């Protein structure tokens, strides 16, 4: 499931591969989980979403879909899909019977032999690479990639994306509704109060059919009194055991919630009990809760590192929160693999465009040049190139496209960016769309921001692989500071 491929020399960050067999997707971590609203990345229809190549994991917050579509609709939809599938299968079997009668028996035998050989060779390749390959059906090669039911099919999320299901209690929507021993209090997207029991949550999960489910828990919010915190921590262990008992292939892999609370005593007591449960092998990863709630940066780093010291290395760790670039690097430095945030969307809604600017460009070209260095003349040429690049006009990390200076600017958002918006449209066009309040502006900016965010993650993975994480982090911090000028 999760395999560590490289551990960075100077920090605790690591490169890994997370396989999600349900969707036949292998993610390279650290990676970005794109947050969605009701299963859709806001403003983007599925064909637009496919224009961003590196987004593979999407997160859904259950309270958003609890009324519409709701449990009954999903159940009926799944039944409908199954009935359709079975009727298609019956038809196919009938067709095949006719075919078999037409073709002679000898031909059948030769076909089978060829298929067996193929299967054997597939298995051999699989064994060499250490990855399982499913043997293909005789009839339909596309059956693997067809999503049969669940929320993915309902919302047309497609075979390229995987689902990460979580539940956030009402405090995150700005309302305080007290949860009880039996129920979690949430806020639906219509703004109403709902209570979900953990077993209802798991029932939902099995209808949604996600790849990863986070165990039901109340993410404790900061200033609660000590005994309240202890209660909620006990509840989450109870609910984790319930979730394990209801875990099936349909609910996917299970991630347990870690409480990165301030008080180390409660935290460590909880961790002890949690790790005992984890030893049984039913928990497949962790989610850090209680972070990005107005604690300071140093405090956050401290809490994360104190916890990751005690966690088993071979299980992936994820975190949820609206983190800026350098804050993400704090987390990854201490060993976190999956980051779920809606930061690009927030930028879009403020009409800000991310200009990530590839700070590792020089480092990457240095590496190449080291391998190719032969003549002194070449060195001089390369130095000159770097100087010219540094003399380029200063562009901030975040560009506010409401600024009138973009009225005459016919460059794409970021020169050299390969996203759909930059290849097809210019800054002045989007400036115009924002001023007349057209929706297309949001689509183009969101596409661009998410694309640039995923470039950031790519660079991060390169930095870990080449043991240059600390230089990368410094480059990002100077980028962010320069934006504040």
């Amino acid at each position, binding site marked *: 499931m999760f395999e560590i491929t490289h551990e960075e020399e100077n920090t605790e960050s690591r490169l890994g591969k997370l396989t999600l067999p349900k969707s036949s997707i292998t993610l390279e971590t650290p990676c970005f989980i794109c947050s969605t609203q009701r299963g859709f990345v806001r403003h983007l*229809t599925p064909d637009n979403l496919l224009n961003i190549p590196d987004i593979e994991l999407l997160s859904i917050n259950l309270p958003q879909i609890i009324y519409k579509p709701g449990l009954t609709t999903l159940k009926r939809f799944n039944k409908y899909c199954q009935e359709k599938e079975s009727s298609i299968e019956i038809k196919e079997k009938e067709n095949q019977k006719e075919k078999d009668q037409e073709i002679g028996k000898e031909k059948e035998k030769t076909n089978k032999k060829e298929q067996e050989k193929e299967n054997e060779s597939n298995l051999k390749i699989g064994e060499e690479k250490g990855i399982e390959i499913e043997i293909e059906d005789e009839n339909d090669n596309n059956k693997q990639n067809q999503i049969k039911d669940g929320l993915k099919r309902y*919302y047309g999320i497609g075979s390229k994306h995987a689902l990460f299901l979580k539940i956030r209690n009402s405090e995150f929507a700005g309302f305080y509704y007290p949860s009880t021993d039996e129920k979690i209090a949430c806020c639906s997207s219509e703004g109403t109060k709902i209570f979900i029991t953990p077993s209802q949550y798991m029932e939902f999960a099995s209808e949604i059919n996600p790849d990863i489910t986070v165990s039901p828990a109340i993410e404790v919010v900061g200033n609660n009194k000590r005994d309240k915190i202890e209660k909620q921590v006990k509840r989450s262990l109870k609910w984790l055991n319930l979730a394990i008992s209801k875990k099936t292939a349909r609910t996917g892999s299970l991630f347990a919630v870690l409480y990165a609370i301030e008080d180390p005593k409660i935290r460590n007591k909880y961790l002890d009990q949690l790790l005992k449960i984890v030893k049984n092998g039913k928990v497949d990863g962790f989610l850090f809760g209680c972070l990005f709630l107005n604690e300071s940066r140093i405090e956050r780093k401290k809490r994360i590192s104190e916890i990751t010291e005690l966690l088993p290395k071979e299980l992936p760790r994820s975190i949820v929160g609206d983190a800026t670039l350098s804050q993400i690097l704090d987390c990854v430095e201490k060993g976190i693999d999956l980051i779920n945030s809606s930061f690009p969307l927030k930028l879009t809604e403020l009409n800000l465009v991310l200009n990530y600017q590839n700070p590792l460009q020089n480092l990457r070209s240095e590496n190449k040049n080291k391998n190719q260095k032969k003549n002194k003349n070449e060195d001089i040429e390369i130095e000159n190139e770097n100087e010219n690049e540094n003399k380029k006009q200063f562009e901030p990390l975040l560009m506010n496209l409401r600024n009138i200076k973009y009225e005459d600017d016919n460059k794409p958002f970021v020169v050299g960016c390969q996203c759909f918006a930059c290849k097809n449209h210019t800054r002045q066009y989007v400036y115009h769309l924002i001023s007349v309040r057209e*929706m297309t502006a949001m689509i183009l900016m969101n596409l661009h921001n998410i694309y640039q965010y995923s470039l950031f993650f790519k660079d991060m993975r390169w930095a870990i692989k080449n043991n240059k994480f600390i230089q990368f982090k410094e480059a990002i911090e100077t980028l962010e500071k320069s934006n504040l000028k």
Partner: protein
Amino acid sequence: MSALEFEILAKSGKARTSILTLPHYKVTTPIFQPVGTCGSMKGLTSKQLKELDCQIILGNTYHLALHPGGEFFGKCGGLHEFMNWDRGLLTDSGGFQMVSLSKLAEVTEEGVNFVSPKDGSQMLLKPETSIKIQNQIGADIIMQLDDVVHVLTSGKRLEEAMYRSIRWLDRCIKAHSRKKEQNLFPIIQGGLNPELRKICLKEMIKRDCPGYAIGGLSGGESKDQFWKIVSLCTDYLPEDKPRYLMGVGFPVDLIVCSVLGVDMFDCVYPTRTSRFGTALVWEGTLKLKSEKYQFDFDPIEKDCDCLTCKTYTKSAIHTLVTKETVGCHLLTIHNIRFQMRLMQRFRESIKNNKMPEFVRGFMKAQFKKKGEKKITYPTWVIEALQSQQIELDYENDED
């Protein structure tokens, strides 16, 4: 002088299907033109528009002149470059918006004196300014500035408006500086008065323009009068030039007017209703906000090939519509595709010599109701189609 070519491929009575070759694209008519007001089609990218088979879209000169402005287009090379759209474009003159959106619009012989509702500033829109801005925008087809009056006006004011439109047409033709790249269409006025319409037709046809538009309709008149005026205009307009009926876009109207010989249409209806959750289908409309679609797992239309119908069910769209912007985009995609397919099937029916059957089948699907043995059609539809020897089917054989 004209910058277009018009070749009729097949005819069926007054209806015809043709190829209209514009400077930027070859358009097949009869065609529906979606409206992309300020340089974009509410939430769709140019790539999606191409997949929907949009061949020519409309831009509103009034909005584009306010922002970013005519001079801007002069600098940046036109609206095609600006929005990265390489197919056909049509701009209207700005006259209609000025009259419908402002409270104080004073019309004089010189032009329309307009008071902006935002800051009270005055602006004079003359035929020359309208044409100048449209020249800068660079669309394939541009419209004259006409004296727009409410369709139910009659008497002296209507007559004055009609004669003034002719005079303004001459001024527009004189001011037009890109005759080889842009086609200027006159707009036939005259309200609901057949005599005034005939005078206007005769005069404007004398100017020998590349194509003609029929204006002054689609604003609250009774449909009986509406179809008769349309039919009168198509009787008089030259056969070998395209005819554009402005502001008409409900599916039934599109088919009836295509039967009467119109080639081009435009309307905000499909894009606007999608934002309220209404989907257009062969049988009429579906209000997807209603609770009865919560458990309906069929696509909106089974034979539609748009992205929405191939991937989503009515139930999924019902949960999204008016709540997420994506719901609005998905419905817009379907509605525009519906209009395009409707026109495409009409064109094919003319080529295959089966236009009357197609119209009969379409009208039956639109107007039949469950439980009624006989189908009742609106009188104007019956009469308009009878004028072209198409008889409708009154038996409701329920499937």
